[in-house]
């Protein structure tokens, strides 16, 4: 069996809390041993000197839009796989909003087969909570889960009908499945495009009140109380929404949530003169909401940072603001933007890595996200301090829609490893 020994890296394992310099031995596809000095037990191993670098589990990105099947001109499993590899992401979970949507076992199987062929980052998928993502009839949740679907969601839109959502949650609880909600009360958000307030008013763009988020979360929490289902709120972005989740957790409800880098790295002023690369759903919020997201990440109310990767071609973004598509690409910038939380002193490196690896793995029930003997050798080697500038031209993703071009960041991926296989490597 092929042995690789990573020597003298700073080992960060969020599962055990280990944060110390040491060695890690990979045997084939799995982690064989983790310890201070393993050279004596692994003399025949290939040595990777990792002095000055951090070795952590590979990132688990629980919110990625693949665009395959159906919109391969914007992104494919191959291109997003390369982007993920360069971004240190070793596991991605896809949203079901493809064409056709992931509401049938055949699509789950198609994605699994494509991921095996491409063989880059691991690809899992959620399935639609309702057939055709139409918010009415339940999908075959039991069968879909048995075939690999990790959770159920209508993707970029909420399950808005309360009775349907109650049934989704109750049926999910029957099989102990995870339900993920896009937190926006659509009937209140209406035709809004940006967060309500001075920016929207100045630009003459229709606003969405931040209350649309907490109203949906509060409604769902009542339904979670009734059903007991495991409920995960995607991309929380408002102080009120985060506070509602904080209270629910204190109450002991089975609730988790994630956010995405734009919600702690930007606020609504980034919209500037109608920059469509800042058009997101949920929209960029006020500075006080942004700070609440940072605080939620710090105190652990927000469990996970996910990229919310949403590739769009130029034709979908070089438009008047109202006509432009929602969302930005993110798998390649997930790590460097998240490092800002560490460099700005909000999170320790171990806490940050936990929100990018072990927490999502635990919520999703995946055996990854940890440096433990026997665990899959999905690893990430990075330099936490090196300075560089994000350049969207260099993205491996087929789409380049991101508002972070030219942003100076600190911390960079050196190597990404999936099941012991190096899928990305960079020296400088």
């Amino acid at each position: 069996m092929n042995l690789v020994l990573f020597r003298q890296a700073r080992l960060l394992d969020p599962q055990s809390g280990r944060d110390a310099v040491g060695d890690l031995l990979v045997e084939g596809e799995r982690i064989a041993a983790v310890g201070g000095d393993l050279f004596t037990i692994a003399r025949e191993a290939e040595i990777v000197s990792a002095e000055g670098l951090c070795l952590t589990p590979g990132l688990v990105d629980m919110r990625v839009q693949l665009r395959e099947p159906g919109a391969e001109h914007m992104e494919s499993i191959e291109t997003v796989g390369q982007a993920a590899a360069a971004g240190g992401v070793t596991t991605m979970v896809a949203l079901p909003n493809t064409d056709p949507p992931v509401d049938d076992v055949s699509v789950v199987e198609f994605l699994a087969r494509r991921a095996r062929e491409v063989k880059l980052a691991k690809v899992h998928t959620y399935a639609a909570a309702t057939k055709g993502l139409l918010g009415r009839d339940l999908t075959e949740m039991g069968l879909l889960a048995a075939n690999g679907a990790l959770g159920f969601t209508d993707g970029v839109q909420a399950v808005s009908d309360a009775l349907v959502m109650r049934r989704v949650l109750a049926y999910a609880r029957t099989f102990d499945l995870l339900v993920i909600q896009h937190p926006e009360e659509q009937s209140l958000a209406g035709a809004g495009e940006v967060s309500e307030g001075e920016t929207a008013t100045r630009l003459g763009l229709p606003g969405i009140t931040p209350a649309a988020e907490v109203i949906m979360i509060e409604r769902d929490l009542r339904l979670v109380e009734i059903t007991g289902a495991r409920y995960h709120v995607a991309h929380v972005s408002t102080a009120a929404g985060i506070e509602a989740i904080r209270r629910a957790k204190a109450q002991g409800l089975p609730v988790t949530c994630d956010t995405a880098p734009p919600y702690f790295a930007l606020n609504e002023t980034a919209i500037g003169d109608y920059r469509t690369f800042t058009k997101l759903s949920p929209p960029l919020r006020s500075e006080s909401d942004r700070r609440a997201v940072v605080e939620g990440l710090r105190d652990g109310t927000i469990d996970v940072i996910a990229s919310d990767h949403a590739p769009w071609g130029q034709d979908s973004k070089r438009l008047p603001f109202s006509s432009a598509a929602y969302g930005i690409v993110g798998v390649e910038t997930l790590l460097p933007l998240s490092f800002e939380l560490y460099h700005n002193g909000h999170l320790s490196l171990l806490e940050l890595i936990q929100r990018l690896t072990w927490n999502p793995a635990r919520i999703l029930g995946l055996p990854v996200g940890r440096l433990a003997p026997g665990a899959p050798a999905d690893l990430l080697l990075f330099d936490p301090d090196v300075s560089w500038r994000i350049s969207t031209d260099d993205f491996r993703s087929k789409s380049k829609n991101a508002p972070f071009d030219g942003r100076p960041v600190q911390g960079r991926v050196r190597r990404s490893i999936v099941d012991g296989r190096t899928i990305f490597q960079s020296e400088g």
Partner: protein
Amino acid sequence: MQEVARNRPFPHRHLLGIEGLSPEDINHVLDLADGYVELNRQAEKKRSLLRGRTIINCFFENSTRTRTSFEVAGKRLGGDVINMSVAASSMHKGETLIDTAMTLNAMHPDVLIVRHPESGAVQLLSEKLDCAVINAGDGSHEHPTQALLDALTIRRRKGRLGGLTVAICGDVLHSRVARSNIALLNTMGARVRVVAPLTLLPAEIERLGVEVFHDMAAGLADVDIVMMLRLQSERMHGAFIPSTREYFHFFGLDYDKLRVAKPDALIMHPGPMNRGVEIGSEVADDIDRSLIRQQVEMGVAVRMACLEILTRDLGNGPPFP
């Protein structure tokens, strides 16, 4: 006075909005426009300032008044004015917008006048074009020539803008006229109020430097100017008011509500009016107090001034090399 004004530089390539203009910029336009008011009242109205220049009126949204006003302004200055109406249904695909820009650009216009139903769309177009662009209204964002013509109308009657109290009443939420007027009047030192039910006010409107009222009696007290806005039913997705009858009862302008304003308070409306909805006919047609027809007259003069300013430094070479 005008010869002096003509030498003043206008440090903007386009006229996309009032925001960003200085008091000097605004006065400069108004001073020039004053001269054009006199010209337009003569039998011989034609000038040759824009001879050889091509002006394209590109309207992605239906308009008769504004388009005609720009057309008259361009022709009086001797320019060649072409009207392009792009049907509202065919423009919702934005790729068409950039393609339209490239197509128009290839025809080498000197000025493009654009109206578009989406906020920010005119700016997006201007980034793709080599010629000067005038925003003739974009979504709920700005309509700068309307604010300038309103300012000219007020200045000619009151002699000044600074120190006046102006109440802007009605559908502020959907109104680009309101946003441009708020910016202009604040820049010129007037005090601005908005009066509307809360369903027709955008969030944090007070951050734009206005006092907010929900009651006409309080909002119109001691004002110098009452600007009524058109109730824009075409931009209303859903019910913002229960009925036009109720709206007129509480927010429509009539002599009764006007009583609390200054005795010499003047009435304005950007048109087209919904009589009996936001404004009563007796008030609208009051030749002593209503400036509505003057506004239309000033519109041509202001647009002539804008066309002059934006084409003045072009010379005969390619525009903006």
